[in-house]
């Protein structure tokens, strides 16, 4: 019942936000040229989704996002694992990683264009670069969350390294990793969209940038909604897996 109440409250807040948006624009409190009304924006969104070119842009972006994610997560996880397993390496690498993590990544966008040119590789590369540090750091934390007692138990019952990896490390780490996956996706999506907005011939980020430059506010806001929906969908998907594993947490 409480869960239902929370969901209802969330829906109510979203509806309320849209209502306020609509009122602000319709009443002229905010210039409608600056902030087109919610209903107009939704209508534009419907229009845009009919267009083949927009659908193609969405497909391009989705491919880039999935590719960057599929590369960054295993590579980052492996590096994070190796760092966490080696004390010396961990001591050396951790502050450096945190430093790298703290730098705004967009500074490096021109370098990606120099290396990869403008296109798929540049955007995937930048998405990868935006994501990998958070994956490495989260994995390191996840490995540290594995309890020594559990490892000793496995050892005392003669587990092989492989068995220890899959039967102790992986399940211990999974809750932290799923949470990390969610956050990594945010970084990944942001990275790819940013790369598209900076320099690209296609993709939804490129479209949004074009609409923005031409002050097509309706289209721009519709684009923002599209990206919001993509982000929320992914988020909820991982959350759903998370709650299914929630009994693991003590």
């Amino acid at each position, binding site marked *: 019942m409480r869960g239902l109440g929370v969901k209802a409250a969330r829906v109510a807040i979203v509806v309320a936000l849209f209502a306020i948006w609509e009122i602000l624009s319709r009443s002229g409190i905010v210039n409608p040229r600056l902030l087109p009304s919610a209903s107009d924006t939704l209508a534009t969104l419907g229009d845009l989704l009919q267009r083949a070119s927009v659908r193609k842009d969405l497909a391009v972006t989705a491919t880039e996002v999935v590719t960057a994610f599929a590369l960054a997560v295993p590579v980052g996880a492996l590096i994070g694992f190796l760092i966490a397993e080696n004390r010396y390496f961990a001591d050396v690498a951790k502050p450096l990683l945190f430093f790298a993590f703290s730098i705004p990544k967009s500074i490096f966008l021109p370098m990606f264009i120099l290396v990869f040119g403008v296109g798929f590789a540049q955007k995937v590369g930048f998405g990868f670069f935006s994501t990998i540090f958070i994956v490495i750091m989260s994995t390191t934390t996840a490995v540290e969350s594995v309890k020594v007692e559990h490892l000793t138990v496995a050892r*005392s*019952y003669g587990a*092989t390294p492989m068995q220890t990896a899959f039967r102790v490390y992986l399940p211990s780490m999974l809750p932290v990793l799923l949470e990390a996956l969610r956050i990594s996706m945010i970084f990944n999506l942001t990275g790819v969209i940013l790369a598209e907005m900076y320099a690209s011939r296609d993709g939804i980020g490129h479209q949004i940038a074009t609409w923005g430059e031409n002050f097509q506010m309706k289209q721009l806001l519709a684009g923002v909604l599209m990206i919001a929906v993509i982000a929320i969908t992914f988020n909820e998907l991982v959350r759903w897996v998370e709650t299914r*594993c929630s009994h693991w947490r*003590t």
Partner: protein
Amino acid sequence: MQPLANITPLKPAGAVEVRNVGQIFKTTTQDVVALEDVSLDVKPGRFVVLVGPSGCGKSTLLMMMAGLRQQTSGTITISGAPIPEPDPNRVGVVFQEASLFPWLTAEENVEFPLALRGVTKSDRRARAQDALKLVGLDGFGKRHPHELSGGMKQRVSIARGLVQDPPVLLMDEPFAALDEQTRMTMGDELLRIWAATGKTVVFVTHSLTEAVYLADEVIVMSPRPGRIVDHLQVSLPRPRTYEMLSGDTFGSLRDRIWRHIRKSA
């Protein structure tokens, strides 16, 4: 004489022999002598309790008996053979409460040692059921650890230690995290299980009452470097009862242990 008497018999299953064992931990700053010249003999089927001040090396000694750590000097044999690495067919280990895997159900936790050796699912299930029944947890197999009380969790740990039917069971402060009442009940339960299975048990505790109540023999260790300072035989009859706790025999045994520990504090 029997005709085979001139052939050296195999050491009976369940014997634990510790001979002149020492353990030195090398750390970056100094060498820590944890144990020095420890010798003890545990006959099969005996219930032996180790007590001693914190840091005297009880856990270290148990780890070495389990093959989880190698001694710096001396020899340890379990059922007559050295134990260079963990051997769950010879030794079962019961850890503190936190050692159960929270992502597995009670029966999956108990099956864990069997799953590692590729025992078939149905076989595993059947043996886990037997072990859970033995520890009094029939019908709780589908629960996760967080759905069990502290005492029940330790029953699961014991079941996991017993599932491969090793002759020796090593227990490092298994009831330390439990409240006193549960602890008393678990002591009785352990004695019942021990009587039913005939295992050799080496049990570490900080509770002198628990030590005397459970043990056939109590071994008292000195502060670091850990040495054996006393070895008591507990002659109280079995089954042990709550009334014995207030008897003279019990009191004098506990006092004797306490005097050793106090001297070292």
